[in-house]
């Protein structure tokens, strides 16, 4: 080992308690940071995946203005051929066309206003998790069958079961009166109250007939393998749409602006907390290194009078800090990873999280997972601030005068 | 009546890999009103004996009696009370509490004793005057010379008129004039208040004031002489 390195290392252990306490502060913060960052980013990913999987998909082709107003007449004409062409072109089955209308659904006993989707029975399962959440009956099979799939809460409120009739009333695309009688063929339960209470799906062909859509629909939903793949797909999709059709493509954060913003809001408060932790560690290091320099004033005076340059002493102090910081970094990253891994195996459940989880499409028990990135990001920042904090005591050495320094005991 | 009685004290320190006999079968009796100089080269055991008498250090064996109480078996708290009530200390160095002023240092023991503030003020001012530090009462130790600091320490040791004063090289940092003044002060207290003094020193001028000189070497008492004090 290099002699300077050995000197720095030994200096650290002249006050083992102090070194351990300062390292302890780093380890504590690092452990917490690793855990929190792993948890946080794990949750974001889950939130995004779960929210988009339910219904939204990664992107949608829509008529301009539809995203904001959802008016019947803001429609995509010839939507089925369009969806078919896109599926062929991108060799992707996870593309499906939909129509949407609002209507009053009446059973024998109750009437509720609901959102009615016209979906492609063959392709909807590729872009939405709802077809897979059927708990009674079946999903739609035929483009024109007079069937409907509704949410569990809606079924309870309407007091209907499989095979019962529902009357749908609403306005067609041209504003005319639209009505149909359909049979409940399936009941789904997503666990998301809004969806279970307000959603119904019927075959797109029938939907187009009932609401006078004349072959039009409102959205072509596209799901990719991953978020990253979706990002790559987006420009190709835009390019492949007919230029004169005036259609727009929205990606997921345009479709679910709340999601990204909720993440941003959460991130900013999380970063505030992390920042405070890091600052507190920096203070701790500043204190320790300043004391360590001050109590060695006499000793430094001797070395300076022997002809050593202040710059080398400053570097020695920085090296000591770097060594101590490195211990904090390594131990902290390891304990943080172990701590997090415990929850990776056993899961984490906070009281009250069930209610919050339902709000963000999260499971009530989350399993945070550390990656190299989440394990190292926090500790690295702490390390950087550790070095920054040691600058002041290190720079003080330049002002040290050998004779005066030796007088101090 | 004896003020201090030590019976067959032994104390061994380990220094490096060697055992050092600091006290080797030491017995000594000091009467009330005694004025004793312990004289020894450094390492001769005089500080250890002084500390044993003051209850600061517990001997390995033997008995220490101060004011008719056996102190080597006392608890820390009892020892603290005993020192507070009966013994005044003057150490060689590091005598003062650096964050307190001269007057506060002098008042410190009285404050711990619970003496009311007015009385403390009055007594401390009087004693500072007596040791020649009038006007310096608001200085902190760092703002005073070594001699001035030592006089503050003496003032603190005698301010509450203890029956026994233990002093370890009290004149080590003083010039000859100041140390003579200090010794005169001790002598006067000894005469008028019958205060017992035990002073460890190797300063010839100090020895002149003693009524009894006890010489030690390697932890043993080698000579014990009464003399007429100067």
């Amino acid at each position, binding site marked *: 080992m290099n002699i300077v390195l050995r000197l720095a290392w030994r200096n650290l252990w002249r006050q083992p308690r102090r070194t351990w306490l300062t390292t302890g502060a780093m380890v504590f913060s690092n452990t917490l940071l690793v855990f929190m960052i792993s948890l946080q980013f794990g949750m974001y990913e889950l939130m995004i995946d779960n929210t988009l999987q339910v219904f939204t998909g990664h992107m949608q082709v829509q008529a301009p203005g539809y995203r904001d107003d959802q*008016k019947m007449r803001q429609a995509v004409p010839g939507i089925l051929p369009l969806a078919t062409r896109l599926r062929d072109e991108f060799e992707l089955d996870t593309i499906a066309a939909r129509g949407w209308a609002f209507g009053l659904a009446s059973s024998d006993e109750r009437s509720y206003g609901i959102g009615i989707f016209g979906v492609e029975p063959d392709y909807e399962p590729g872009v939405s998790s709802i077809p897979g959440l059927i708990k009674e009956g079946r999903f739609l099979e035929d483009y024109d069958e007079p069937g409907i799939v509704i949410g569990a809460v809606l079924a309870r409120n309407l007091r209907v079961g499989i095979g019962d009739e529902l009357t749908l009333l609403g306005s067609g695309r041209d504003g005319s009166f639209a009505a149909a009688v359909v049979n409940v063929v399936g009941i789904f339960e997503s666990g998301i109250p809004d969806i279970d209470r307000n959603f119904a799906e019927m075959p797109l062909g029938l939907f187009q007939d009932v609401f006078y859509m004349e072959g039009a629909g409102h959205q072509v939903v596209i799901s990719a393998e991953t978020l990253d793949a979706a990002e790559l797909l987006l420009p190709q999709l835009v390019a492949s749409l007919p230029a004169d059709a005036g259609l727009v493509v929205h990606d997921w954060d345009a479709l679910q602006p709340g999601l990204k913003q909720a993440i941003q809001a959460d991130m900013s408060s999380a970063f505030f907390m992390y920042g405070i932790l890091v600052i507190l560690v920096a203070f701790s290091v500043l204190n320790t290194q300043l004391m360590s320099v001050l109590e060695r004033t006499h000793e430094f005076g001797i070395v300076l009078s022997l002809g050593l340059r202040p710059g080398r002493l400053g570097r020695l102090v920085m090296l000591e800090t770097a060594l101590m910081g490195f211990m904090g970094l390594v131990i902290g990253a390891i304990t943080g990873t172990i701590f997090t891994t415990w929850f990776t195996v056993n899961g984490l459940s906070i009281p009250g999280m069930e209610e919050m989880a339902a709000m963000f499409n999260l499971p009530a028990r989350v399993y945070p997972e550390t990656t190299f990135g989440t394990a190292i990001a926090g500790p690295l920042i702490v390390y950087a601030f550790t070095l920054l904090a040691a600058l002041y005591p290190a720079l003080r050495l330049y002002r040290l005068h050998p004779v005066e320094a030796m007088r101090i005991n | 009546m004896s003020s201090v009685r030590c019976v067959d004290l032994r104390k061994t320190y380990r220094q490096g890999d060697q055992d050092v006999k600091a006290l080797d079968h030491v017995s000594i009796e000091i009467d009330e009103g005694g004025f004793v100089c312990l004289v020894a080269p450094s390492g001769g055991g005089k500080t250890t004996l002084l500390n044993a008498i003051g209850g600061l250090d517990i001997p390995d064996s033997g008995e220490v009696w101060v004011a008719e109480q056996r102190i080597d078996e006392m608890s820390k708290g009892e020892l603290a009370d005993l020192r507070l009530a009966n013994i005044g200390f003057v150490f060689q160095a590091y005598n003062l509490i650096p964050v307190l002023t001269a007057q506060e240092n002098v008042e410190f023991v009285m404050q711990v004793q619970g003496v009311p503030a007015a009385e403390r003020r009055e007594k401390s001012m009087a004693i500072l005057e007596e040791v020649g530090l009038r006007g310096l009462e608001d200085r902190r130790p760092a703002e005073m010379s070594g001699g001035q600091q030592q006089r503050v320490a003496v003032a603190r040791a005698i301010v509450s008129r203890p029956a026994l004063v233990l002093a370890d090289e009290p004149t080590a940092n003083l010039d000859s004039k100041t140390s003579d003044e200090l010794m005169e002060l001790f002598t006067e207290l000894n005469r008028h208040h019958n205060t017992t003094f035990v002073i460890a020193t190797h300063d010839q001028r100090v020895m002149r004031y003693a009524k009894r000189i006890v010489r030690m070497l390697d932890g043993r008492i080698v000579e014990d002489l009464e003399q007429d004090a100067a």
Partner: protein
Amino acid sequence: MRMTPVLTRLAWRYLWRNHRRTIIMLSAIAVGSWAMIFMTALTRGMVDQMIADGISVLPGHVQVHDPEFLNDPSVANRITIPDRELAASFDGAEFRAWASRVRVPAVIMSERESRGVTLLGIDPAAEREFSFVSYDEVEGRFLESPDDNGVVIGRKLADKLDTEVGKRIVLMSQDPDNEIADRGFRVVGLFEASMPSFEESFVFIGKTTAQKMLRIGEATTEVVFLGDDYRDVDPTYELVAERVDGGLDVRRWHEIDTYLGTMLKVMDGFVLIWVVVIFLALSFGLVNTLVMAVFERVREIGLMLALGMKPSSILAQILIESMLLLATGLLIGDVLAVLTIQPLQGGIDISAVAEGMEMMGASSVLYPKLYLDDVVLANVVVLILGFLASLSPAWRASRYEPVEAITKVG
């Protein structure tokens, strides 16, 4: 106890003997306690606003329904007791306000569009205290009486329906026999709300008008009560529960909206965890400072012991020093917190993430709320934990042997 003044003086002077270290530690404590209080005030503000908004949708701190209504919100599950009988049964009880209303799901249709909404049939005079709509800020006018023939809808809904003040819309719901009950209304007013979703989902008509349209006579679907403080609704609950017939379901707001109720509790937990985490981050520095402070005055401690100070007084001295350090740091942190929160009382605009906040149930302006309880909690927790953390170095300091301490070199 007698020793406290002298020990305090010693502790304070020792604190400033190494002023650099003390200033650094004070800064750390001040930043830590500032962060505790500031962050707490922000989250409290957010949750308060969420709950205020949440309650304004419900609205009412205590609500009475037919037992089936919350599961099956239909006029079939209505309250048939007429208002004057209700008024008689609440005679003598003091509420900030109470009202009965008709709340049912409905469909609203313009010439071109239809949407699902919650229809509220209200007595505008009785609801003034409850409503999240400020009557005076409505474009056009608000409802004027229970038999007003107009409808007031949200601006966002009006946009989606392509309608405006003066135009007609149709409201459709069901009567108790599940016959379609519908009626045309003229839009008389457009309201704006702090949360966009309110504007889309609530539609106001007169209570009597609603009763006629739904053919329910003098029946309503809910009776609601406001107490003085949403955090403490039990007194109101007791008053109502005592006076309401056994057949009806009386609930506190947090029993109806469990999300909000839980948020309130989660936030209490969060505040405590945050305070403890910050303290732990501080504690290393605190213990370190004390260890160093003791270490560099071992000889002086020995001297004090030699002079007759009891070990317990040394212990007390170090503890007092630690408490003084913490208290001073906390004080600075508290003052900083108040100074930084004060200018933000008018609200922090976070509309950049408005839709995200709405997803959480919060609105886009954040009003920090500084509660004395939270400040006290932060300070007390730090002092208590700080005291415990200081015990070890203080204990060690009091265990020195005077001679060893005095003769210690270094």
